[in-house]
């Protein structure tokens, strides 16, 4: 009888890495390397960043050839013009990120796509947290070897006369893709252009489209078995 009153476990499984993270964090706090408050602040900061500054960087580059040149030559400096300083808030890099951003320019003959086969290198200061699929062994293992098949699973077919160039991000450089400006966006403002440069376009698994925005309304699916009266 008593067993029935035991609380159910809150999670089914805790991975080794989660245990390691907690252990290292608690040790660091005990040794005074940083405080629990510092940790909370960094976590809150890390979760508040997203892909909008990178979209802005691409939109600006489409409109301003001088800025585009800067973005391709020196991503670190170009980031500052869209409000991202890779050194902040720690003074030596956003938590756990390096400061060498490389922008990969798509052209009519080359399409870039980014992966990190080692684990999850990602330009977080300017793109936010990586999507869950980016960190899966499935994407990491298969993209380097069967890139066109993986891209087609994302719904992206690249013509055979276009070179697909996989960038395996494995050292201190961080990569984002600068897609080509789509047709049908002539006379658009920077704000309008930034809206169609979604996260996936800057990883290279999608192309921007004038009718698709990051904040489009999602389709609503009615519940199959609705609870009556609610």
């Amino acid at each position, binding site marked *: 009888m008593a067993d029935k009153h035991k609380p159910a476990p809150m999670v089914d499984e805790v991975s080794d890495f989660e245990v390691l993270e907690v252990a290292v964090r608690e040790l660091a706090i005990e040794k*005074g390397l940083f405080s629990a408050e510092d940790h909370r602040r960094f976590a809150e900061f890390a979760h508040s960043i997203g892909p909008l500054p990178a979209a802005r960087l691409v939109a600006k580059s489409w409109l301003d050839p001088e800025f585009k040149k800067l973005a391709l030559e020196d991503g670190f400096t170009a980031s500052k013009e869209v409000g991202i300083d890779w*050194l902040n808030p720690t*003074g030596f890099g956003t938590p756990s990120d390096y400061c*060498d951003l490389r922008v990969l320019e798509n052209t009519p003959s080359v399409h870039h796509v980014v992966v990190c086969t080692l684990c999850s290198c990602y330009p977080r200061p300017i793109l936010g947290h990586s999507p869950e699929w980016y960190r899966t062994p499935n994407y990491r293992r298969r993209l380097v070897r069967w890139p066109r098949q993986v891209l087609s699973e994302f719904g992206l077919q690249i013509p055979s006369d*276009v*070179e697909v*160039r996989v*960038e*395996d991000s494995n050292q201190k450089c961080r990569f984002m893709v600068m897609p080509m400006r789509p047709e049908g966006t002539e006379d658009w403002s920077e704000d309008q252009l930034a809206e169609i440069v979604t996260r996936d376009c800057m990883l290279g698994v999608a192309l921007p489209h004038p009718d698709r925005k990051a904040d489009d309304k999602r389709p609503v699916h009615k519940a199959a078995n609705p609870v009556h009266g609610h």
Partner: protein
Amino acid sequence: MSRGHHAEKATGKGDPQCFRGEAPAPKFKVGDRVRIRDLPDIFYTRCQVYTRGAEGVVAVVTHESPAPEDEAWDNVDEPEWFYIVRFKQKELWPEYPDVYENDTLQTEFSERWLESA
């Protein structure tokens, strides 16, 4: 407690910028043909197995930094140059379809992993 020596070195500059000027002159330049060496990597490496022995072309000379095989053990005294190398996919994966022979893959190496090809 004071911050680690890494944080002190990188503050206000960033990493890898804080290692600028510390490596000997780069041995390779953009356009050089290189082969990836198959060095031992008992403890830690960032050199993927699928590139070992493959030949490619230096696409970018990126920056100076300690090699990850050293930096993982806090040996940061001998930074070296890093290179993004471009491979033909066919060179990495023999079964890669001929119809996509132009497809490429780029990844980055510290200088110790490269030899002239």
